[in-house]
């Protein structure tokens, strides 16, 4: 897995919020290496720093200590190179743009040739199953459809990396499971590297090739679990004994950490 250079490399990274008088250690000495094409999930309870780590990688926030490399570059350079697409927990669609125009937004910002917008966006909307809704405004879509539109937007400019911050956290269980399947399809057709933040253990086990289990106060990596469930994963995967074993492994890690702290 690690023979080629990692696409994301995090080395002894710490993030401290606040000043000398009142400070919170959001991340402490976190090191992590992700290979091209992996699907890695960051799992842990609130306050474990999983979203913070994602935002440091995306250069939406700055690390206090340590080094990060994204596709071989410092995060700010990687951001300016448009190496990643970011999907927020809220769909963050622009109300005044139709689904199609929303998906075109990064292409417009990045100055891509206008002739390329439509074919590119059509393809992405077809992939997320929104082709028939291209001229709808965000308020006309359900929460699941809005999130699909935001995934299409993140993929429209074909970044190598997809950073997803609890993208399905606000969806109901049924919609979430369907979106999980669709995301795996997208991952397998596009060969993106996906870094996925969630607090759902079952979601992480179902999706990932590797799970990074994080614990709070201070935020750090407790363990990394390889998920050896074969792809493509199906509804039956969720019912297999191995699925439950892996869920238990992750859950036990989190439990030990909590017990260890008391």
């Amino acid at each position, binding site marked *: 897995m690690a023979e080629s250079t990692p696409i994301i490399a995090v080395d002894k990274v710490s993030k401290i919020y606040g000043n000398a008088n009142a400070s919170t250690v959001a991340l402490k000495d976190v090191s992590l290496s992700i290979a091209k094409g992996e699907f890695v999930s960051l799992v842990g309870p609130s306050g474990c720093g999983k979203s913070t780590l994602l935002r440091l990688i995306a250069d*939406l926030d700055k690390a206090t200590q340590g080094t990060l490399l994204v596709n071989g570059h410092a995060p700010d350079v990687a951001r300016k190179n448009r190496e990643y697409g970011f999907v927020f927990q*809220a769909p963050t669609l622009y109300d*005044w743009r139709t689904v199609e125009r929303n998906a075109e937004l990064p292409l417009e910002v990045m100055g891509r040739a206008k002739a390329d917008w439509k074919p590119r966006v059509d393809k992405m909307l077809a992939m997320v199953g929104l082709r028939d809704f291209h001229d709808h405004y965000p308020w006309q879509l359900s929460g699941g459809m809005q999130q699909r539109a935001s995934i299409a937007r993140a993929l429209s400019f074909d970044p190598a990396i997809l950073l997803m911050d609890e993208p399905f956290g606000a969806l109901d269980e049924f919609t979430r499971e369907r979106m999980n399947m669709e995301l795996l399809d997208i991952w397998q057709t596009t060969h993106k590297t996906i870094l996925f933040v969630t607090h759902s253990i079952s979601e992480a086990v179902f999706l990932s090739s590797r799970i990074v289990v994080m614990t709070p106060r201070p935020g750090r990596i407790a363990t990394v679990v390889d998920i050896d469930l074969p792809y493509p994963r199906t509804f039956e995967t969720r019912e297999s004994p191995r699925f439950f074993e892996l869920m238990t492994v992750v859950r036990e890690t989190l439990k030990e950490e909590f017990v260890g702290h008391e």
Partner: protein
Amino acid sequence: MTNSVTLNESTGADRQGRSMPRWLWLLSGYLIAFVLVALIWEGSKAIFEIPDYKLPHLAQIAEAFVRPTPKGPVWLVLLQDAAYTAFEALVGFTLGSVTGFAIAVLFQRYLPLRRGFLPYVIASQTVPIIAIAPMIVVGMGRLGAPPWLSKSIIAAYLTFFPVVINVLRGLESVDRDALLLMRSYAATDNQIFRLLRLPASVPYLFTALKISATASIIGAIIGELPVGSTRGIGVQIVVGSQYNTFNPGFLWATIIMAALLGMAAYALVALAEKRIVKWKREE
């Protein structure tokens, strides 16, 4: 009218089971409101024995509208004056909105400017406009400006303020993740402004323009009140109040015409909003 029809169609489930004709059902609200206002009007006149010069009969007002004059019936004369006032207000409205918008954009982009100038912008609206209107009218008249321009300036003065405040709020109304999204694309400040802040401010702009539309009419009318003005619905209001004892219906005819003018201005902006802001949930 067509607009209210489509609106009622989309929300008209509550009409089911009624047997009255559709047009009557749609008009019934206007009828009920008018009858109620008329009852209160004539009722209080009868009960409190209010004389005609203080509150004329509705019939007297109606009669004042259709009375003939050398220049045609009164309603036509008033309509012409209202059109003149509308012109003054429109010039002022345009001037005020454009200025207000530009000020809001400057304030949003340069925080020190906002800190320094916002107190003056707010202070400008605490000055009683009725006190400085004559100064503007007389002063500009001496400078040789056309008579309508001073009225437009007063209209602009009342227009720009709601635009500054609301557009500023609109430009700042974007949420954090919407901004971070732009950051993730490495967007320039100009792109963030053009593709995010500006469109986000449009609904706020229309809220302001609806206030400003009526305010600009009031501004123009206030500008017409000082002695020396010859045209406009404000002049007719002055004439009406001078002859009120002899002709009590006329003053109210001018007031109603002024009110209709304000309502028309509001309706025009609301219509433009409906055409332009297509992305909002239907209310």
